[in-house]
């Protein structure tokens, strides 16, 4: 084993003199007060090594021994990942004793003492390659596939697979023979280096199917596709975390990976306490059962922030390889970028914009590109959808992290300070935000057959109404209420109606917080009917009064169960309001 000695410490940057050759990004362990502290090599200059420490460095002495592992940062993949609460390096937080996390404390990622019921899929004699399914175990309620280890190259023949039965994760469940006759024993656990993509699929296709999040402003106006990417930038306090958690609670996904990266501990506690009590809308099971939380809060080691997002993505890819629909959320990707900046500054590298490292855009692009819809070797489909939040300094989107992310993410959910101040939640700016999937012909086609014919056109017309309304508002505020035609007021109030009834959604109301697509379809059609009606008003003041009543009824509808008696009652009220105006229009004309 290669070793070295510590020659310097600046915060979590450690300088090491190594005995033999060292590889970039290899993991090493530094001896300090009876503990071995994990660090990652980030620079190699001959025998002079710089490493970032995933701990606090106060216990390290000059001259301390360093053991190099020859391996990059790896995690363990196997049954038992779901429901776990990991730190950024896949230590199981639940297994850690003590109220405080002590320096150098670790715990096992998987449970080696739990029996899983294994059902074989592969049969002796079959030819397989990396990622192919050998068997399946029940993990909570999910069929967790045991696969040919991703690291195996070339084709293998299955020599044997164990019979159906209960096994421990480290038991051998299959034996494979390589082309040149070497045997490989396969257990339920494999290791994978987190910075590498699990790419054992046949092909990656353009995302084409809507991923239902239950949020109207997303699903209806700016839909994200299964296997798609999105980002949510916004100044502090504008609702990034609330929005992401709403997405987490309501999205129709098989597996959910929640990465809390450099944010508040109390927000994770919220997930810990809430998720077990919430039911997954699709399966009726506890939400906790399909969720893994990776938690590296702002007071936990800074270097592990970067690791945490990669750990999350690797787990997501692992479940995608089982043919599952995975959603991964990271809050906030800016904290990861800042961790890179802190380290780059300590290394005295030549900085890029705002002192971020110059390779930042490439790092972000590379990460987002790991999402996607994939066709597996057995023609099943799996997907990883990624949505990250971005916390721009000073709330200004013209900064490196927001801009680099904008270049790669296909959906943009811009949170606006103004909307948040006016408590118009979710504070997604309807004009600035977009979904590029609305322009994918395959997406449009799918929406035609699965939602309604002409759906995307309807959505775009709705956006036009919003835009017209905002333009009218600008005219009104420049020229004054009575200096513009009454029609301008109508245009403005139609956009207000769409805002209040469609865009705004109460994430703290049990009913309003999730709107199934069927209901969104009803609402969009209803709003478009109203929006495209010819109204007649004598003076501008009448317009506001009329639409405020309409908005009030629409809001009451949103608070009522779909198609319930209460809902119908409000629907009647709405129709009456519209009818009355129509009659008035007829009489007057």
């Amino acid at each position, binding site marked *: 084993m290669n070793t070295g000695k510590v020659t310097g410490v*600046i915060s979590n940057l450690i300088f090491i003199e190594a005995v033999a050759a060292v590889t970039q990004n290899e993991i090493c362990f530094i001896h300090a007060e009876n503990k071995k502290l994990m660090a990652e090599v980030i620079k190699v200059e001959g025998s002079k090594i710089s490493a970032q420490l995933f701990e606090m460095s106060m216990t390290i002495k*000059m001259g301390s021994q360093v053991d190099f592992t020859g391996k990059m940062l790896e995690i363990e993949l196997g049954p038992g990942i779901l429901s776990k609460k990991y730190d950024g390096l896949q230590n199981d937080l639940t297994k850690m004793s003590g109220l405080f996390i002590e320096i150098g404390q670790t715990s096992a990622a998987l449970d080696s003492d739990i029996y899983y019921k294994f059902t074989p899929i592969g049969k002796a004699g079959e030819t397989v390659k990396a990622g192919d399914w050998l068997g399946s175990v029940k993990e909570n309620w999910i069929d967790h596939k045991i696969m040919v280890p991703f690291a195996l190259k070339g084709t293998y023949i299955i020599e044997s697979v164990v019979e159906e039965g209960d096994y421990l994760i480290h038991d051998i469940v299959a034996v494979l023979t390589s082309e040149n006759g070497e045997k490989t024993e396969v257990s339920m656990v494999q290791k994978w280096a987190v910075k590498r993509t699990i790419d054992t699929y046949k092909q990656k296709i353009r995302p084409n199917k809507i991923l239902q999040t239950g949020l109207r402003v997303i699903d209806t106006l700016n839909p994200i596709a299964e296997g798609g990417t999105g980002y949510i930038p916004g100044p502090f*306090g504008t609702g990034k975390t609330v929005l992401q958690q709403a997405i987490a609670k309501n999205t129709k996904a098989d597996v959910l990976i929640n990465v809390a990266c450099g944010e508040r501990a*109390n927000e994770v506690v919220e997930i810990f306490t809430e998720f077990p009590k919430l039911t997954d809308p699709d399966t009726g099971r506890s939400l906790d059962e399909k969720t893994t939380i990776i938690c590296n809060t702002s007071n936990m080691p800074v270097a592990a922030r970067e690791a945490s997002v990669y750990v999350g993505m690797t787990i997501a890819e692992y479940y995608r390889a089982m043919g599952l629909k995975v959603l991964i959320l990271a809050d906030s990707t800016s904290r990861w970028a800042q*961790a890179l900046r802190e380290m780059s*500054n300590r290394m005295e590298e030549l900085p890029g914009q*705002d002192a971020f490292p110059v390779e930042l855009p490439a790092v972000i692009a590379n990460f987002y590109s790991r999402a996607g819809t994939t066709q597996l070797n057995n023609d099943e489909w799996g997907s990883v959808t990624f949505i990250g939040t971005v916390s721009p300094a*000073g709330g200004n989107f013209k900064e490196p992290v927001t801009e680099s992310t904008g270049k790669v993410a296909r959906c943009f959910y811009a949170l606006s300070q103004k909307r948040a101040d006016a408590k118009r939640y979710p504070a997604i700016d309807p004009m600035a935000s977009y979904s590029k999937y609305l322009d994918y012909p395959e997406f449009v086609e799918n929406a035609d057959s699965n939602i309604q014919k002409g759906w995307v056109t309807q959505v775009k017309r709705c956006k036009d109404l919003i835009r017209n309304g905002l333009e009218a508002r600008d005219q009104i505020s420049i020229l004054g209420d009575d200096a513009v035609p009454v029609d301008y007021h109508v245009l403005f109030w139609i956009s207000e109606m769409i805002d209040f009834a469609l865009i705004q959604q109460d994430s703290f109301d049990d009913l309003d917080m999730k709107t199934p697509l069927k209901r969104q379809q009803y609402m969009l059609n209803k709003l478009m009917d109203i929006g495209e009606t010819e109204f007649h008003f004598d003076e501008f003041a009448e317009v506001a009064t009329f639409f405020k009543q309409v908005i009030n009824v629409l809001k009451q509808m949103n*608070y009522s169960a779909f198609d319930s008696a209460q809902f119908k009652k409000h629907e009647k009220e709405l129709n009456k309001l519209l009818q009355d105006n129509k009659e008035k229009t007829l009489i007057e004309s």
Partner: protein
Amino acid sequence: MGFKRIYTRISNITKATCTLKAEGARYGELARINGMPAQVISVIGENVTLQVFAGTEGVSSESEVVFTGSQPLLNVSDLLAGRFLNGYGEPIDGGPELHGEARAIKGSAVNPIKRSKPSTLLATGIAGIDLNNTLVTGQKIPFFANADQPYNQVLAEVAMRAEADKIILGGMGLSNDDYLFFKNTFTNAGVLNKIVCFINTSENPPLERLLIPDMACTAAEYFANDKKQKVLVLLTDMTLYADALAIVANKMDQIPSKDSMPGSLYSDLASIYEKSVQFAHGGSITIIGVTTLSEGDITHAIPDNTGYITEGQLFLKQDTDIGKVIVDPFRSLSRLKQNVIAKKTREDHPQVMNALVRLYADAKDAKTKKENGFDLNEYDKRCLEFAKDYSRRLLAVDVNMSIDQMLDTGWELLQNYFKKFEVGIKEEIMNKYWNDDRTIKA
């Protein structure tokens, strides 16, 4: 610790740091130069760089450096109660030396899984806080205020009204007047036995401020965890703390990021604020800070990073229409209010609060319209009238009432100025609280 390591060969001296050749030094270790405290901030080979808290004035290349073998420590025990200490945890009140367990002041993080969800209401009687931005024990939240706002007075008022077993004041760059103000407030209220103060005044060296928050949090952790008490930590002014960080970073030749602040500002501030916690055993640490702004600019790196860390902020502002300081409902936020409103408070709380703020926003639009020289319509005029009343009766910081009273006042305002359909409140709640017999004033 073993033998004392003493060195006298200082090679390099800047205003805040000095470098010498020494063996066995560790990152973060406390040393003394000519008896003055200093901390190791970098070790590269034999070259050890120290940050000298009191500044390097009087340090020569032959000054004596003694390494203590440990990080900065605080002696914790119940004897802390009632004491006034400096940034090193030494008495400044003329009282006896502190005894107790010596604890390193930058303790480990609480395992998130062991935290409880903060859900105990922390009432202050100020409607701008309790109604619109309800606080919870275990929360971290700063006041954002311009230098001319009475932030320390409001902070003291909140501390005196809030229910707490211990109040720990971390004063950074406090003016001597404000220091005495806090001291008098605590003395007059007869609460000296439940306070601990760590004080750095504007007369003390600025770098000594760097130790204050960690000292305060270490004392807080002792009472909250060891003694299972409810602890309230007051940190004022965190902007001056951050300025001190910038001085050190600058002397270390680090590349500054936005507003000349070090790139690690977010992590540095987070390590302090994240000490706030609700333990399962009932003990808690609540942190209320002060971040002074320059001309209300919250996009400056200090308030900006703070906002990204804390669980909301309370924005103090002068309302010229009523001539009082108010808690601005637009820029203020308590992110933990969800944990208690309509759960520990009346069911109508969220809806009333939101309706009032939304209408206040309409009033703001009307005001802009008026300032731009446009005629106001009837609705605009009602909004403006409402805004003044709302500001005076609920937003002003001199209000002191129960949350039920605040809600009743809220309904009264809504009914006085608006029609039923204008308030946009859920029907269920309207049916219960809107009094149809009342007539609208407008």
